[in-house]
């Protein structure tokens, strides 16, 4: 299976996961969205050396994936895409911040190294939270809640249409790459001399395809404003879930449970 087909399947599989019927899927999208935002803000707000306090926050993605029946592999494989960015963003820290913070099994650990680990943990937690939100909430429901939360319509439309169009674009690229490889013998990849033409063709096809999709939407009354299905009312359970989870997350921010548990056994 080509990498492009794999990417296409990955996008589609996340979409399919969101159609599940678990307790997490049944929660109101607004409740999930607010808890995700609170979770991300709390994660980001931790001090760059405060690694131990962040550890209990791993409970949130683990519980959400278990209750939402989301395969760990599907989230972790997507997570790998984001990790190199945060790794390189924090790579210089151990070189500039060399002061020893702690000695671990006799090995000195610098503050710079701690901040690098902290950046990676923050990336892991925030990206996982977003992936879990997408895997448990269909994109149109998520978009309708963003509009309800007063996010500018134009911005939401861009997110939604880009997400929708991504699949079509990858299909187009896959077809072009397959056609190219079938006529290029044993050669791997696309030769540099053909890359320009290939990209140009892709751009033209992409325009053409986008225009056709847009015209089809116009023929069915699309006037630039996406009309979402009426969302279900927020139930008492959704309020309870939102308040409880937000409280626990905020509690994790102010109480270092790792230290607390450690001191109990220490």
């Amino acid at each position: 299976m080509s990498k492009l087909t794999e990417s296409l399947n990955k996008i589609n599989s996340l979409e399919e996961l969101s159609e599940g019927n678990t307790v997490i899927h049944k929660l109101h999208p607004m409740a999930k969205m607010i808890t995700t935002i609170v979770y991300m803000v709390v994660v980001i707000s931790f001090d760059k050396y405060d690694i131990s306090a962040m550890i209990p926050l791993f409970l949130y993605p683990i519980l959400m994936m278990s209750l939402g029946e989301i395969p760990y592999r599907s989230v972790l494989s997507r997570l790998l895409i984001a990790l190199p960015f945060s790794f390189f963003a924090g790579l210089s820290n151990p070189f500039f911040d060399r002061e020893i913070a702690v000695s671990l099994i006799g090995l000195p650990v610098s503050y710079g190294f701690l901040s690098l680990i902290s950046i990676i943990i923050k990336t892991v937690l925030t990206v996982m939270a977003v992936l879990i939100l997408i895997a448990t909430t269909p994109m149109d429901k998520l978009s309708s809640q963003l509009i309800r939360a007063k996010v500018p319509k134009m911005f939401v439309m861009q997110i939604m249409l880009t997400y929708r169009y991504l699949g079509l674009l990858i299909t187009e690229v896959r077809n072009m790459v397959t056609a190219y490889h079938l006529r290029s013998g044993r050669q791997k990849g696309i030769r540099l001399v053909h890359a320009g033409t290939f990209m140009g063709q892709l751009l033209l096809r992409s325009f053409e395809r986008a225009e056709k999709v847009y015209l089809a939407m116009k023929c069915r009354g699309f006037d630039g404003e996406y009309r979402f299905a009426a969302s279900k009312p927020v139930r008492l359970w959704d309020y309870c879930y939102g308040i409880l989870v937000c409280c626990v997350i905020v509690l994790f921010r102010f109480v270092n449970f790792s230290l607390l548990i450690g001191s109990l056994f220490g």
Partner: protein
Amino acid sequence: MVHIRNINFTYPDGNQAITNLSLDIEEGSTVAVVGANGAGKSTLLALLIGILAAETGEIEIAGISLKKDTLEEARRRVGFVFQNPDDQLFMARVSDDIAFGPRNFGFSTTETEDMVSKAIKTLKIEHLKNRSSHKLSGGEKRNVAIAAVLATDPEVLLLDEPTSYLDPKSRRNLIHVLETLPHTKVIATHDLDMVLDLCDRVVILRSGEVFADGRPQQLFTDGKLMDSCGLEVPLSLQNRDLL
């Protein structure tokens, strides 16, 4: 139901696709538009739904004179099924895709649900309702695309190559479905055997002009006429020695 008077259309590259074309289509009739590649079939349908605008002449469809300010109303009354269903199916789920039109036309949630259910029932695709659009077969996609257009309750149906991408059985099913629809239908197609089964009138285009207009059985058996339009007598009308 459809009145076209002396329309002309030229593409930006200078290709005159439609030349002084006039046509009248009665309410409830099923009319096929056939012709060789580049004869102007798809362009004619695009002009009828206002995707393209005629340079000269007039188009009246479903009681509406087609102009820039009447396009929205015209699109309420006219449904267009694209040649490639992948261009048309945009939403993740089949039911959402079918509901896309009614929601845009301002129908309430209950009305939209009723219209979706009715369209799904007409096309007999209840089993596809909750499926992902991208996972359907070609025939299923075609049926969903037609259902998505039917859900808007149009008076006129324009279909561009409806039997393309279909295997023989799906094609036959589609013909049965189209037979049962009471709408005025204009079908641009190369499938002349389908025209024989389904249409009571055929318009043959050549170089953007109406070359012949009549009953399919009558026109399709005229080998000379068919040949001059770049067409062939349909297989079902040919006397063939198979052995």
